[in-house]
Each structure stands twice: as C-alpha cells, then as structure tokens.
C-alpha cells in the first residue's frame, strides 16, 4: 500500500534527480546573456548552442553580463518597436510605454497611457525572487497621466535616437568632425535629453578619432560613468586611434 510518506519520498528524490547542477545553471546563463546581447531574442539560430568556446563569448558576454545584472525590463520590446536599434529600455521608447521612466532632472516623469488602460490586477504576493532582491513587491502602476505628455516625450526621444544614429554612422565613416557637428546640433535642438551617456561616449570617440586618441579621454569617460556599457568601446576606439596616429605605440597625449 502506497502511503503519503513513500509518495513524498519518491517525489523529493525525483526533484533532486531532475534538478540542474551549478554548471548547468552557469552554462545556460552564459548562453542566454549572449543571445540577449546579440539581439537574437527568441531566435534559436543566433548563438543558441552552449557548445561554443568560451573565448568566443569574450567581451560581448562581459558587457552583456553587466547589463543583465541591472536590467529588469524586457529589452526586446524596444528592439521590436521599430524606432531604431535600441537594444534595451534605457533608451527604449516601447520600454517607456510599459513602465514608468527613470527619473530625470530635466523632465517630469509620466506613466505611459498604456498602463492606464489596464485594469489594476489583484496584487499577488511576490515570490522570493523579488523579495530577495530587496525591492518593493511588484505592483501594477496605477498612477494616471495624460497620454499627450508621454507621446511628446516619446517624440523627443525618437528624434534623439535618430540624430545619434547619424552620429554613429559618421563615426563609422571615420568622419569625427561631422560626428561632433551632429552632437552640437543635438545639444542645440534637444538639450539634455535622455541619452546623455550615449552622447558623451560618442563625443569622446569622435575626439579620439579627430585628435589621434588619448588614454586620458577614455579614462575620464570611464571615471565619469562607472560601470558604463560603453567603456570598453570608448577605450578600444581611443586606443586604436592612438595606435594609428602613433604607430610606435607611444601615447603622446597627456
């Protein structure tokens, strides 16, 4: 006769036998980070296998892991928004539609209209995952805001994104003067904005391209933006520019 205790024992053992190892968890995590970083969301074709040499993940995974340690909102909403190449909700218009925006001294925060339209859900008791993170329990945003303000902000962000794209293209074309001109235009038309870090990173890279690269410029950026996802890019650009200007390898700039 099967009793409760035997049933419980078999199930507990099965749970143990079916559970992943620490290595399983770490391996899949690395692969997930890579897929997210590559933007291959939902696509098994892009880096789906975990059987890749560790070296291939390299810098990309380091950047991706930094993001993953802080990101909490789906990145692909922004990537799929059609507004551009934004990869995450830091600059994502669509991410802004899904939840309140980060605080900015320049503009008051608005709760996007889409949240207003949803009936507030009965709040569930958060799982340990949320509690363990020492953040408030998940709640549906219930503050009502006029939709017009959110749309206006979205339009400003759209414009900022478009101009930054042009900056990027100029940098890619090794036209730092044009890139700096565009950044000046950006400051005039959209002072402040929501993408200050992107602008600064672009500015440093343009200056490095123009002036032959400087370690101090890259260091200043890193110091002013600790943990920035752009630091490695900025450093690499400045280093390459310096090497091209000074093939002997010396950094002649202070």
């Amino acid at each position, binding site marked *: 006769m*099967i009793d409760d205790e*035997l*049933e419980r024992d*078999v199930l507990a053992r*099965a749970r*143990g*036998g*079916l*559970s*992943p*190892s620490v290595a*399983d*968890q770490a391996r899949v995590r690395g692969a*997930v980070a890579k897929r997210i970083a590559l933007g*291959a*969301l939902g696509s098994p074709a892009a880096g*789906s296998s*975990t059987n890749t040499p560790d070296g291939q993940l390299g810098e990309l995974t380091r950047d991706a892991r930094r*993001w*993953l340690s*802080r*990101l*909490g*909102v*789906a990145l692909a909403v*922004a990537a799929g928004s059609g507004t*551009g*190449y*934004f990869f*995450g*909700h*830091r*600059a994502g218009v669509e*991410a802004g539609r899904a939840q*309140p925006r*980060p*605080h900015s001294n320049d503009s008051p*925060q608005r*709760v996007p209209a889409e949240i207003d339209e949803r009936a507030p859900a*009965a709040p*569930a008791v958060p*799982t340990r*995952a949320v509690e*363990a*993170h020492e*953040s*408030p329990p*998940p*709640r*549906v*945003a219930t*503050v009502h805001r006029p939709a017009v303000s959110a749309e206006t902000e979205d339009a400003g962000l759209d414009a900022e994104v478009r101009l930054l794209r042009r900056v990027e293209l100029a*940098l*890619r074309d090794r036209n730092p003067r044009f890139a700096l001109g565009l950044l000046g235009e950006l400051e005039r038309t959209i002072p402040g904005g929501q993408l200050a*870090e*992107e602008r600064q990173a672009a500015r440093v890279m343009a200056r490095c391209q123009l002036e032959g690269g400087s370690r101090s410029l890259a260091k200043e950026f890193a110091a002013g933006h600790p943990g920035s*996802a752009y630091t490695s*890019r*900025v450093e690499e650009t400045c280093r*390459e520019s310096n090497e091209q200007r000074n093939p002997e390898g010396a950094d002649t700039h202070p």
Partner: protein
Amino acid sequence: MPTIFSPEHQRNPADPDTHSGAKLVSLPEAGRNEATSAAEPRECFDFDAIYSEHFPFVWRCLRSLGVSPAALDDAAQEVFVVVHRRLAEFRAESTLRTWLYGIVRNVAQNQRRSLGRRGIASPLDENMSSPSQGPDESAADAEAAEFVAAFVDSLDAKKRDIFVLALLEELTIPEVASALDVPLNTAYTRLRAVRAEFRRALERRGKS
C-alpha cells in the same frame, strides 16, 4: 572600426533606420529599483534574480515535460530569453512561477514537436545526479527521476501539468489553477485523479 553602438558590424537590411545595421547598446538603467517619486510606484523585476531563483524550477519542469537531455540547454535558454523579452508584460496577476510555467510549457511543447517524444525515460547520466550528493543518493535520485519522468510521459497534457506543478513542484492548488487557467475544483479533481494514478504506478513498480 568599432562604434559605440555595437561590437558587430553586421548589416541589417530589415532595419530601415540604419545602413550599417549597428545597434545601439543600451545602458542599464540607474536607480531602476527606486520609485521615481512617492506617487509613482514601479514594478521591479530583476531578471538576474529571477534567473537565479527560478532556473532549477524551469529546468526540472522542462525535463518533466519531456524535453530530452540533448535539447535541455537550448530549451532552458529559450525560456529565459522569452522571460527577458516579456518581463515588462508581467503584471503580477499571477505568481512568477505560474507565469514562468506558461512559458516553459510552450517551449517544451515546441521542443517535443520538433524533436519527437522522448519515449522511454533517459538512462542514468551525469545530468541526473546532484554533485553535492554521494553516489548512492545520486543513484536513488536518478532512479526516482527516471521513474517520475516516465510516469509523466504516460499522462495526457492536462494531468501532466497538474502532476508537475502540484506534486513535483509543490505549488499550491490556487497557484496551479491560476497557471492552468482552470477553476479550483477542476484542479482539485485532476489532482486526485493523477495522484491515484501515480500511486498505482508506484505499487506496480514496488511489485516488480
């Protein structure tokens, strides 16, 4: 020449906003876990924490739902990539696990369709033992896992869900009902039925 915006220099002809296809690398959001003001509560879902907390649950469910060991890594990746993409949609109308299970079930169904049913439960392999246990305990756990996996495989979809959620993962019946979008009484009825079947299977195994 690397740019700010991506380590890749791949063309993306589908993207009308760029001729290079480079993608802006977004920044993590500073102060994400702080309310912007007292009047604006925020949903705070940390993907990293969710991954750490719920990976074992996802992994076990995938295995229980018939994903073969060879496909397990890809299936688990798929689940968390979807979680990452859809986290903003999670409105706390259910618990996180019930929401996760919906994703797991879909991924498992797709895997089973594409790779075929696993059939007989997998033989003992290193994935089935916990590294923290001794060999005897590992073997016993592996045997139990094999038995349970084979049992789950024999169930229809409705009973399979109930078994995995209620008996294996020990979610509460209200959570199970929410995850499966069935009335509470239906969940209880199915649980009684699947428990009776499980005990019959245990008896048969005991006799054999």
